[in-house]
């Protein structure tokens, strides 16, 4: 798409664009504010915000499902949910939290921050970016409409064959699950390609790979994981769909299939999935800890390379989910060992974060608290992970609540605490007002309490024999007490989320009486804090030239040879002023991404209920693709006159012209 966007600039000034406007194709929308601007936007920041908002919406749905589960398990023989409904609720809870909450929040931060952190004006393919978001949203909504169209999927988020076959799950729940996740998979895949190209091609001058902020690094690794992991899941789902809908025999044991095929395919996707969910949060924390410790991240190259190592090693551990499935002692031994040693790069990260805090001047703001929360809670999840990398121990622990405890310490204690840190940290940058600090701290302590009350008891419940995915348990097994504690914890956790949402609205209402937030409220380190808050549409004007890691910090501070820090410029001097953005060429909004994405669930409903409907959906998709391709590159009314070299900079990113880099000249390069 970057090429298409390029063309009008190549036109001689004053040339008509009519040749690019075939009959019946809309001109490009121009709205910059109001609802329409959101539906047609290709701005990575608006898309990032929409990813975040949609994810929080789905988080509330998934959270309600979690509370239903906890209420059902409050006491033995719970009767709130039937066995059938419970199976649907826990399946949809897992699916929602993984695919519609943690992954899109990662995408939200990646979308919003990557272009800002690398000094670009947008992503490489802005319309594809919009398409990714809409496809994710429609896929997620499609998945959840199963609740009113015959019930949710009931096979567990891992959807093991042959229990996911039509004989064992005759309702359409699993079809919705299959097709919904194929749609969100398309979204993830296009998003991954987009962000990888963006990082590799659109960095500001001087922004070498080893000068990139760690968040961008971790998000990049996680996009590569997506790129290779999602197709595996999608292929498995297509096989399952053919089995369910068209009597294929991929997982039919009677016809000689081996059900372990599904397990292998699912976990070859599923384990890299875990790392791609956690890495963006690791990146956020790696930005936040140095900011509030007032010293650089300890061992930048080690943090980066351990992240890359996790990205590679994450592909060699999938069968640790299958230690008891009968893969044989040799495979068990091999995957046991690989799983153990993936703890090494993860441990390196934990120790580096700890060392970053050592000797610092720690300011316990809300983002800092949540970051420390991640480091500590993830340590627990990491250690329990090492415990079940020991395959014989895992044969006792797997499929018990011990595992439930473990992965919630990883995905909630790890990823979600990191996301909360990121929300509090980047809120002023995205919305121009700070979230209330005191409420934020209360939010943290309440969440820490609720989280531990909910999930810590599950370790002991699992070791003492409580199986996963059971809708009921009997008295006499000793499960009562800790289940009650966990349920109380779940409601505490829910109240901390409610407090967060309250804080958003409360702080917004109070922000009117406060002075506007400057570009750099936290005295931060990376270049996204150079731009005004909220970020202007054009991001940077002009594009900065980067000379080192934490470039913005070293525009403000110089460092003497013995590690002493001296302020050399005030933030106001080195931060960018809000300009009118004239002369900055930005990609125009487009109708087609949302139209194209809208066609996908129509096809999916068609595949479930009537192939005629699928045909209509197919027509929508083809029409949208036609419109997309034939769309004029830009609104013909917009002028394209070049304002000097800056206008060119917007298109290529790496072709940007440096601003004056005087401020950093006298500072010795350290990174």
């Amino acid at each position: 798409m970057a090429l298409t966007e390029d063309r009008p600039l190549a036109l001689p000034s004053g040339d008509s664009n009519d040749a690019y406007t075939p009959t019946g194709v809309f001109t490009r929308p121009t709205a910059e504010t109001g609802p329409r601007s959101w539906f047609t936007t290709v701005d990575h920041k608006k898309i990032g915000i929409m990813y975040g908002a949609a994810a929080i919406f789905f988080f509330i749905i998934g959270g309600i499902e979690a509370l239903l589960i906890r209420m059902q398990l409050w006491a033995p023989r719970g009767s709130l949910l039937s066995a059938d409904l419970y199976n649907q609720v826990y399946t949809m809870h897992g699916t929602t939290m993984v695919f519609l909450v943690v992954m899109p929040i990662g995408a939200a931060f990646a979308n919003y921050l990557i272009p800002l952190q690398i000094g670009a004006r947008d992503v490489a393919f802005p319309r594809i970016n919009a398409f990714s978001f809409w496809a994710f949203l429609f896929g997620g909504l499609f998945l959840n409409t199963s609740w009113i169209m015959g019930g949710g999927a009931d096979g567990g988020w891992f959807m093991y064959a042959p229990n996911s076959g039509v004989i064992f799950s005759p309702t359409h729940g699993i079809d919705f699950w299959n097709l919904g996740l194929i749609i969100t998979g398309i979204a993830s895949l296009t998003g991954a390609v987009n962000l990888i190209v963006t990082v590799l091609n659109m960095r500001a001058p001087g922004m070498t790979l080893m000068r990139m902020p760690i968040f961008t690094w971790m998000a990049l690794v996680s996009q590569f994981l997506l790129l290779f992991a999602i197709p595996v899941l999608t292929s498995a789902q297509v096989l399952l769909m053919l089995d369910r809908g068209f009597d294929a025999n991929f997982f039919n044991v009677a016809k000689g299939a081996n059900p372990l095929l599904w397990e292998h395919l699912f976990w070859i996707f599923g384990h890299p999935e875990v790392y791609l969910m956690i890495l963006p949060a690791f990146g956020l924390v790696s930005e936040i800890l140095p900011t509030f410790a007032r010293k650089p991240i300890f061992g930048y190259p080690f943090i980066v390379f351990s992240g890359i190592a996790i990205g590679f090693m994450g592909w060699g551990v999938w069968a640790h989910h299958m230690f008891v499935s009968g893969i044989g002692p040799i495979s068990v031994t091999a995957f046991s060992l690989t799983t153990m040693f993936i703890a090494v790069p993860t441990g390196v990260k934990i120790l580096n974060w700890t060392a970053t805090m050592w000797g610092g001047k720690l300011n316990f703001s809300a983002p800092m608290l949540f970051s420390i929360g991640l480091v500590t809670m993830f340590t627990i999840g990491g250690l329990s992970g090492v415990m079940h990398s020991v395959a014989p121990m895992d044969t006792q622990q797997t499929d018990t609540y011990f595992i439930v405890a473990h992965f919630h310490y990883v995905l909630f204690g790890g990823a979600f605490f990191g996301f909360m840190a990121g929300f509090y940290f980047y809120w002023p940058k995205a919305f121009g007002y700070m979230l209330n600090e005191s409420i934020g701290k209360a939010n943290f302590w309440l969440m820490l309490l609720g989280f531990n009350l909910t999930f810590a008891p599950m370790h002991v419940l699992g070791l003492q024999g409580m199986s996963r995915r059971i809708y009921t348990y009997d008295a006499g097994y000793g499960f009562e007490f800790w289940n009650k504690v966990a349920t109380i914890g779940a409601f505490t956790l829910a109240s901390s989320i409610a407090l967060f949402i309250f804080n958003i609205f409360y702080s917004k209402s109070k922000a009117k009486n406060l002075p506007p937030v400057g570009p750099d409220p936290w005295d931060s380190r990376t270049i996204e804090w150079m731009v005004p808050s909220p970020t202007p549409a054009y991001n940077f004007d002009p594009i900065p030239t980067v000379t080192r890691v934490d470039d913005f910090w070293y525009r403000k501070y110089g460092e003497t040879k013995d590690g002493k820090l001296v302020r050399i410029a005030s933030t106001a001097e080195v931060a960018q002023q809000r300009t009118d953005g004239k002369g900055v060429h930005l990609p125009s909004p487009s109708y087609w991404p949302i139209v194209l994405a809208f066609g996908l669930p129509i096809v999916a409903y068609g595949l479930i209920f009537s192939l005629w409907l699928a045909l209509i959906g197919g027509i929508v998709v083809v029409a949208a693709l036609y419109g997309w391709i034939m769309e004029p590159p830009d609104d013909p009314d917009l002028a394209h006159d070049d304002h000097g070299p800056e206008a060119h900079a917007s298109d290529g990113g790496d072709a940007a012209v440096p601003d004056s880099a005087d401020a950093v000249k006298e500072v010795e390069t350290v990174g």
Partner: protein
Amino acid sequence: MQRLPKIVRILAVISFTAVVVLFTALIVNSFQNSGKPLTSLAPEGPSAESIQKLLVPVTAIAGIVFVLVIGAIVFITWKFRERKGSDPDEFPSQIHGVTTLEIGWTILPALILAGIAVGTVMTIINLNREEPNSIKVQVAGQQWWWEYRYDLNGDGDFDGPEDITTATELVIPAGKPVQVTTTSNDVIHSFWIPGLNGKKDAVPGLYNPLKLQADEPGVFRGQCTEFCGLSHANMRMLVRAVSSSDYDAWVRNQLKDHAADPTDPVAAEGKKVWQALCAQCHVIKGINDVKMKETPPPLVSGVAPDLTHFMTRGTFAGSIFNLYQPVSSDGQLLPMSDVAAAGDPGAVLTGGPVNTATVNRVTLEAWLRNAPALKPMYPQGGRGMPNLNLTEEQIDQLVAFLETLN
């Protein structure tokens, strides 16, 4: 909102203290395993013991690392906190990294893990070594109960006339190795007796080995741990380890059949009801075992529990209800989990007479009246026992007949 910072500080103290108390309570509680029949922390057989031998040091190492890391973080956050009134222009010393330290804490965890790896590999080898002269049992999972087939004559066939087929309850001799092979007739299940060994999935089409051995006679409970559909939660199992002589007596009794008619006229009527309505799916050797092999029951799994020696089992319905236990005075259904009343069939186990006074008739009748109401099943899809709409008279006759199945 002026008082908020103070409230936050109080909340922080409460939260921090509560978490510390919680973790302490959990650690203490993990040592209290009595009254927890499914605990994996109280091994009672060699396999489970070898896992425990690995678990203790690994958990200790994890615990030490946990204390060190969390302790370091708590210490750092306290020591290096920003003091009140400190000069905002004063910055800590800017350290970008120390390579030797980095290499050190890359290698050190790797070495610790290498040590754990050695123990892990040795235990894996040990757990997979097949014991000589072990009793061979094939364990087949189906929705939502377990079938056990013993290869008594060691010919590799589990279905010969000298072999035993039973359900729900696995009887083994204490102190002798049993080589279990798990498989499934429908979806994936997982066979788990935490007191004796880790779990092993029962995968359709695959035959996975698992060693079981109990040190002492006793009852060991289990729970299906691979999600297997609607009644996954209600798919339990029970291993009854008995003395060698009791085991031999049990085997002799299991080899008998029930060709002779019951003497009690009510039970004889029950046999007729049984032949008309139940024999389509269930087997009683001596009555309909041959027919069953020709026309498998109309179930997805093609098999229903063999009831030949029904009364020699302590539990029924996928091991969720006790067959023998003190009947609750208020007629409440008593689930088997009431461990104190775990229902030892006693003399019945070796073929002695049924003590009809202790049969849990309330639950048994309720089950016959409407099985899917007691345990979620999907009979319309060929999965699980349907409601047969029996009359009360038929139920009484059936119960009387079932009570003869020693």
